[in-house]
Every structure is written in structure tokens, then in C-alpha cells.
């Protein structure tokens, strides 16, 4: 069975799923997601083939003779197909159980499959028009999924999302047309062949536009504002797909244009990307820390991880433009590896958040607590996800961040002082990000799963259904696998890396991941094994020390009886030190409202309310939109409703044309 057949089969199953979910009804409707899962399996195989370097191209279908659909896949597309499919598999299984309790399941299933297909179409599209159509289809469908609840809030969020991504698309259109004009080709391969003819300034313009266009979709600072609004409002299986893979299509497009089509640009491109990546990761995680809405928190972490990915890609570009292809390859491997990892653990975390909301009917962490007892599996998987995203060994996040560190550390090989200095700073930013992320997930897991339940909802939470657990389990296992078998993953990545940088970064992986350039090496498997042995040893040691009695009692309550759940540390309290330390960034506000019985002597109640200033919204977007709106309202004067005025317009137009026209 050849690769095309796998593709055909996969796509067929998704289409079937889309149709069936509209046709069927009742319980059977949920099981249509099994079809999507099967499709995902097929496409995983196809993607692996593809990433192994077998090229495919589908005969193109004309739209108008000038424009035509054409799909073709290379190793890079293959890698992204694999990533999408892996997450899709898990999410589809999860959705079987999850979609039971959401309204309008038929529409859900339809859009769900359509959404996935559009993502495949994006990474597989062979020319600009196909890319644009798939890209916007993806945006539109996801817009409908974001606004799935149809309430005011989601409508607002969806609007913001749709508009920002549309503006991004406008930039993409321009840069595509520019490429087309100067290369005379509409298909990427043709562009690549003719890209030498593009003038230098135009290349720069294309680079900048691609940052804006694809960056908006990927959610880099400062084009991120849609992301923490849109992702949380979507149903959780969707937000997991959006955060896990949809924003990666932005990364895909960026790599496709700047590393594949344009080849190597000047050095400052790479440096710019490193800086953007560093800023995005730090700012993203800082805002995540202040969120107590669990899905918003995860959304901000997506911004952070995109930043980390960009650190890798940026240094890869930087090396590439200096002709250091080995190093460039290492950095790119780091970036792509983290792309995969983020897809896995962020998907897992969003699914976990979905289960939590399913069980507690709230997104606010301050109302959770103690969930690990009623829902142990969800707790375990969420914990695994948290450990992975904090890049703690032996899970997958660690390996990719380790590689990123290596790449950044190797920056000192670059000729120019700037990149020599910028790259280690990127490393420092990465370290800061890691520490903050750890703090954030201690909060996220600790506050929502540990301690005493903070609300009746949390009190009587139930473990979620089997399929949901299975869906999460798959990803949790993958977190570990991708963490301890980096060789396999790099095996999948390296063909596309070789295609893009012309080198495999001479990373050897015989159980031991060792980078030839530096003599650094890492053996995650060995770390895991040694940890297991040590753990066993300790256990033995404890047992050998003999049996001791364990008494269960209340927590230490300083002598005053009955700890209530309100006495625990809240999420707000937990993050207060950081809020104060980084107040220059958060610009926190707090106001005290006092209601008196008899002013000013007898106070009835004191209310403290604090908030942090959303910098980019407050100082970038709000003024801009306000200006546009006011200008537009002024312009409405033109249509004052007075007929004489309109006649005047005709006369004036005519006069001007007669005077200047001839």
C-alpha cells in the first residue's frame, strides 16, 4: 500500500466522519470520532513516509486557468503532517467521551473534521493560492469553533481572532504576490528555484511581512492578543488542537518561506527571530503566571513555547546565513523537536483542562483544589504534562530545550559579536522561562489538584469517562517516549533538516544523544533508568530500616482548630512575589473599596480588588482601534442625508475632473 493510498484513506475517513456526524444522531454521533481517529492513524503512516523523504504531488485542479489547486508534500510537510496526526489521534479518541455533553454535536463533528483537513491542506499545499485558501479555510472553521458556544463573550473573542488573523493573511497575500511577481512562479518549488532573482530589499520586506503574517497565527508577541482569548473560549478538544497544532502552521509557513523558498538571508534575520523568540517566551510565561483561568494560562504558555521554538529556528537561520550548516541543522532540529513536543504536552494539558472543566464546571482555579483524589488519572496525566512543559527530565520537553540550549550556546562560534552575545542571552531567557514555567505549573497543578477543595463543585467532582482518559493516556505515554527515545524523533526530523540546511548536524544517537560539535551528550533513557534504580534502592533502604507506624492527622493548624479551605494559599497569593518583582512589566493595580456604616468610623466591609495591566492591549491596540473608530464616525458626516449636499458632490466631482482630468 503506497503513500498516496494512506493519504487517500485518511482523508476519506475524515470526510466520512464529517458526513456521518451530520447524518447520525444520539449516541452513535459521538463514535464518529473513531473514524477521525482511524484517519489520523493512516495519516501518521503517510506522514512518516513523507518525512522519510518520499515526495508526493497530486495532479493540480484548475480554479481559473490562472490559478490552480496543487498539493505536494516534502519532508517538512511530512513532519508537520505527522505532528498534526499524532495529536489528532489522541484528541479524536478523547472527543468520543468529551462531546457527549456539548450541544449541536452534528455541527461539532462536521467542523472538527473540516478543521483537521484544512490544517493538512495548509501544510501540504504546493502553491500560494492553495495555501491561501486552505489557510483562510482553517481560520474560518476555527473561528466557528471558537464561537461554538454562540454567546457574546465567545463572539467577541472570535471576532478579535478572525480579524487579527485576517490582517495577518493580508500581509501573507502581499508577500506571496511579491514572490510571484519576482519569481514568476506561483508554486513553492518554482519560487525556490527562481528565488535568486529577488532583489535584496524585497527579500527584507518579505521577511518582515512573514513575521507579521505568520507570527500573528503563531501568536508571537506582540501579535498574540487574540490567542489567550480565542483558545479558552473554544471547546477543550478544539483548543487542544488549536494550541497544539494550528498555531504551528504559522511556524510551518515561516520556515517554508524564510528557510526554504528564500534560502539564507542576512545574519540579522536570525538575530531578530532569536530576540522575538526570547521576548515571546518570557512575556508569555509571565502573563501565564498571572492567569487563574486554567485555559487562559495554558494559552499564554502556547505563546511561551512558540517563543522557544523560534529561539531554535532563529539561531538556525543565524548559523545558516553564516554558512555554518552543521550548527544550523542542530538549531533547526531543536526547533522542530520542540514543535512536536509542544504539540504533545500542550494537547495533553488542554485535554486535562477539558476534563477538569467537565468535572467542576469552572475554569477558575481558585474554585478547584483537591481534585487529585476524585480524579486520579486526570491528575496523573496533567502532572505528566506539567512536568514535560517545565522541561524536567526525563520527559520530552527537557530534550528539546536541552537541544535549544546547545544551539544557543554554540552561538559563540558565530563571527559577529552581536550574535555571540545575543545567543547566550537567549539561553538566559530560556532559563528564566523554564524557572517561571515551573513556578506557573506548581501553581496550576498544586492549586487545582492538591490541597482541600475550594468549592462544592470541586468537592463532588467525578473522574471523566474512559475514552477521555485513554485520549490523555496516549499523549502522556508519548511525552515519556519522546523524552527517552530522542533518536527516533530526530530520525523523523532529520530528512527535512537535511533538506533545509544540507546537514544532519552530526548528532549521533546510539542510546546516547551526543552532539559532535560540542562534546556535550545526553542519555535520557539512562537518566530514567538510573533514576528508577536509585528510587528502588531508596525504597529498599527504607524497608530495610524496618517497619514504622504512620499516623494520619489533620494538617498543622497553629493550634487553632479546623483549617478551612479558605486558609490555603490561593493562586493569587502564590504568584504575588513574582507579581511584585516584575511589577515593571505587570503594572499591577489594586484598589480598596470601603463601605461604611457610619463614615468614617464604622466600616461595614473592605474589598480589595487587584488587576494587572494588559500592556499590549492597553497601549497598542486600544488606542489604534479607538482612533480608527473615531475617524470613521467623523467620516459619516459625508452622508448627512441632505440632498443638496449630494448634488454638490456631483458638481464638484465633475468640475475637478474637467479641470484636472483633461
Amino acid at each position: 500500500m503506497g503513500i498516496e493510498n494512506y493519504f487517500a484513506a485518511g482523508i476519506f475517513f475524515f470526510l466520512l466522519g464529517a458526513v456521518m456526524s451530520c447524518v447520525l444522531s444520539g449516541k452513535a454521533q459521538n463514535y464518529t470520532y473513531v473514524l477521525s481517529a482511524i484517519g489520523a492513524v493512516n495519516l501518521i503512516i503517510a506522514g512518516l513516509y513523507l518525512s522519510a523523504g518520499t515526495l508526493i504531488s497530486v495532479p493540480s485542479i484548475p480554479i481559473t486557468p490562472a490559478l490552480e489547486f496543487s498539493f505536494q508534500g516534502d519532508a517538512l510537510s511530512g513532519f508537520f503532517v505527522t505532528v498534526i496526526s499524532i495529536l489528532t489521534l489522541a484528541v479524536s479518541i478523547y472527543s468520543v467521551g468529551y462531546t457527549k455533553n456539548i450541544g449541536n454535536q452534528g455541527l461539532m463533528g462536521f467542523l472538527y473534521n473540516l478543521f483537521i483537513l484544512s490544517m493538512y491542506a495548509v501544510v501540504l499545499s504546493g502553491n500560494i493560492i492553495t495555501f491561501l485558501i486552505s489557510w483562510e479555510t482553517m481560520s474560518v472553521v476555527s473561528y466557528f469553533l471558537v464561537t461554538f458556544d454562540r454567546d457574546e463573550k465567545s463572539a467577541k473573542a472570535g471576532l478579535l481572532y478572525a480579524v487579527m488573523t485576517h490582517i495577518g493573511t493580508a500581509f501573507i497575500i502581499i508577500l506571496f504576490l511579491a514572490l510571484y511577481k519576482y519569481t514568476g512562479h506561483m508554486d513553492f518549488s518554482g519560487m525556490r528555484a527562481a528565488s535568486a532573482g529577488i532583489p535584496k530589499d524585497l527579500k527584507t520586506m518579505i521577511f518582515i511581512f512573514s513575521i507579521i503574517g505568520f507570527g500573528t497565527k503563531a501568536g508571537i508577541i506582540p501579535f498574540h492578543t487574540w490567542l489567550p482569548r480565542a483558545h479558552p473560549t473554544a471547546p477543550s478538544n478544539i483548543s487542544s488542537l488549536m494550541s497544539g497544532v494550528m498555531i504551528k502552521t504559522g511556524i510551518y509557513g515561516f520556515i517554508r518561506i524564510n528557510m526554504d523558498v528564500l534560502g539564507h538571508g542576512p545574519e540579522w534575520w536570525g538575530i531578530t527571530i532569536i530576540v522575538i523568540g526570547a521576548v515571546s517566551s518570557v512575556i508569555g510565561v509571565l502573563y501565564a503566571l498571572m492567569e487563574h483561568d486554567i485555559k487562559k494560562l495554558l494559552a499564554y504558555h502556547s505563546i511561551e513555547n512558540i517563543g522557544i521554538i523560534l529561539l531554535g529556528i532563529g539561531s538556525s537561520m543565524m548559523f545558516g546565513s553564516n554558512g555554518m550548516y552543521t550548527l544550523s541543522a542542530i538549531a533547526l532540529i531543536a526547533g522542530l523537536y520542540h514543535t512536536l513536543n509542544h504539540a504533545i504536552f500542550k494537547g495533553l494539558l488542554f485535554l486535562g483542562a477539558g476534563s477538569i472543566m467537565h468535572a467542576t464546571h469552572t475554569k477558575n482555579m481558585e474554585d478547584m483544589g483537591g481534585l487529585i483524589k476524585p480524579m486520579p488519572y486526570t491528575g496523573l496525566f496533567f502532572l505528566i504534562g506539567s512536568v514535560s512543559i517545565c522541561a524536567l527530565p526525563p520527559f520530552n520537553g527537557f530534550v528539546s530545550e536541552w537541544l535549544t540550549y546547545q544551539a544557543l550556546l554554540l552561538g559563540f562560534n558565530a563571527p559577529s559579536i552581536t550574535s555571540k552575545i545575543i545567543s547566550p542571552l537567549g539561553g538566559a531567557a530560556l532559563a528564566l522561562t523554564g524557572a517561571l514555567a515551573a513556578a506557573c505549573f506548581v501553581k496550576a497543578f498544586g492549586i487545582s489538584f492538591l490541597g482541600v477543595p475550594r468549592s462544592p463543585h470541586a468537592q463532588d467532582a467525578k473522574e471523566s469517562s474512559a475514552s477521555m482518559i485513554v485520549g490523555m493516556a496516549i499523549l502522556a505515554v508519548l511525552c515519556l517516549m519522546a523524552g527517552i527515545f530522542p533518536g527516533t524523533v530526530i530520525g523523523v526530523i532529520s530528512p527535512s533538516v537535511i533538506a533545509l540546511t544540507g546537514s544532519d548536524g552530526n548528532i549521533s544517537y546510539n542510546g546516547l544523544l551526543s552532539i559532535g560539535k560540542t562534546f556535550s551528550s545526553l542519555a535520557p533513557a539512562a537518566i530514567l533508568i538510573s533514576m528508577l534504580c536509585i528510587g528502588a534502592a531508596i525504597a529498599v533502604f527504607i524497608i530495610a530500616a524496618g517497619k514504622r507506624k504512620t499516623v494520619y492527622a489533620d494538617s498543622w493548624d497553629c493550634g487553632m482548630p479546623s483549617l478551612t479551605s479558605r486558609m490555603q494559599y490561593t493562586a493569587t497569593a502564590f504568584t504575588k512575589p513574582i507579581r511584585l518583582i516584575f511589577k515593571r512589566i505587570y503594572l499591577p493595580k489594586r484598589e480598596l473599596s470601603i463601605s461604611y456604616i457610619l463614615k468614617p468610623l464604622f466600616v461595614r466591609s473592605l474589598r480589595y480588588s487587584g488587576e494587572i495591566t494588559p500592556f499590549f492591549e492597553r497601549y497598542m491596540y486600544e488606542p489604534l482601534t479607538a482612533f480608527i473608530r473615531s475617524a470613521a464616525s467623523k467620516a459619516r458626516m459625508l452622508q448627512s442625508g441632505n440632498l443638496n449636499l449630494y448634488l454638490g458632490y456631483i458638481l464638484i466631482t465633475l468640475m475637478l475632473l474637467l479641470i484636472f482630468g483633461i
Partner: protein
Amino acid sequence: MKNWVQVFSVIDFISAGILVTAVSINTFKRIEPCVKAYTLNSWLLSSLTAVAAFMTGEVHLYAASVVTFLSKGILIPMFLRRIVRQIKATHDVEPYISNALSLTISGILVVVVYAALKEGIFVTGLSKHVLQISIAVILIGLFIMITRKKAIIQVIGLLFMENGLFLSGFALTFGMPLIIELGVLFDMLMGVIILGIFVIQIRKAFASSDLDKLTTLKG
């Protein structure tokens, strides 16, 4: 046997008269004189056509002049008077700007036209002035429409524009083929009648025929 020079001057005189009647609208404070001015204007127009017909001996021009006379000289004025009577409007024109100012502006318009239509572009067999005058009349008609509040005056302004239009057509081409003339005339007639109906409707709906009441639709 015809005295060309005399004929030429005749045409110039008539067209001058047309211009004057058009400009004179600016000065009237009430509606009836405007209607009268329009009637006069139409008569002059048709007589001009007749003279040209007599000169060139084109039959269809005679026809055109007759048709013009009947429709613009008789029918429409009558119709207008009926409307004016029906709507029982306060018979003031209520311009936005003072008559003096509007007079000067329409004067300026005439000058602009003369300046814009340089010699040489159009060489008509008859006269150097007719075209300029005709376009001037069109613009003055538009200007009237712009500056007056009463709906009925706008109709009159429109009619002046049409007269100017016919004059220009005549000046440029000795008039169109007759069938076209008739078609256009018919269209105009219909238009005016419909407009008249609407004037009455406005009167009914807004209890006034002032246009500044008609500003609900905006933005």
C-alpha cells in the same frame, strides 16, 4: 436670399436669451416666476430649433422644435402649475444662500465654462456661443438644484438642465436623429411626471415640501 449674418446674430440672440432666462432663476423669490422663466426658456429653445431648421432646411429639426414646444413649452409648465397649486406650498423658494451670491456664482460658472471649452475643440456650423451657453445652462440648473430647499424648484432646476442639454445636443450635432430625440423627450416627460407625483407624496408624508425635512436617512 437669406441674410446669413442676420441669421447668425439671431441665433446668438436667442441663445443669449436662453442664458438670461436661466440666470434669472437665481433672482426670483417665489415659485411662479421660476415656472414662467422655464416656459420662456423652452419657447426660446424651440424657436432656436425652428430657426436652425429654417436655415439648414432639415425637416426633422422642424419636428423637433414642434415637439419641444408642445412638451416643454405647454405640457410641463401646465403640469408644474398644477403641482404648485396642489401642494399649496408657501410660495417662497427658500434658498440656502442669498440671491446676490447665487447670481455671482452662476456668473462665475458661465465664465468657467467659457474658459474650459477652449476654441477649436468644437467647431459648430452655427455659432461659437451656443455650446458654451448650453453647458452653462446645464450647470446653472444644477446649481439651482444645489442651493434651493423646495422640492419643486429642484424639478425646475432639473428641467433647466435638460433644456441646456437639448441646446448642447443641437449645438453639437444639429440635433440627434428624431427617434432618439423623441425617446429622450418621452423619458424626460415620464421622469418629470414621476417627480411631480413624488413632490405631492412628499407633501403628504412630511407635511412640507422642504428638502431639509428629508434627512432621516443618513450615515
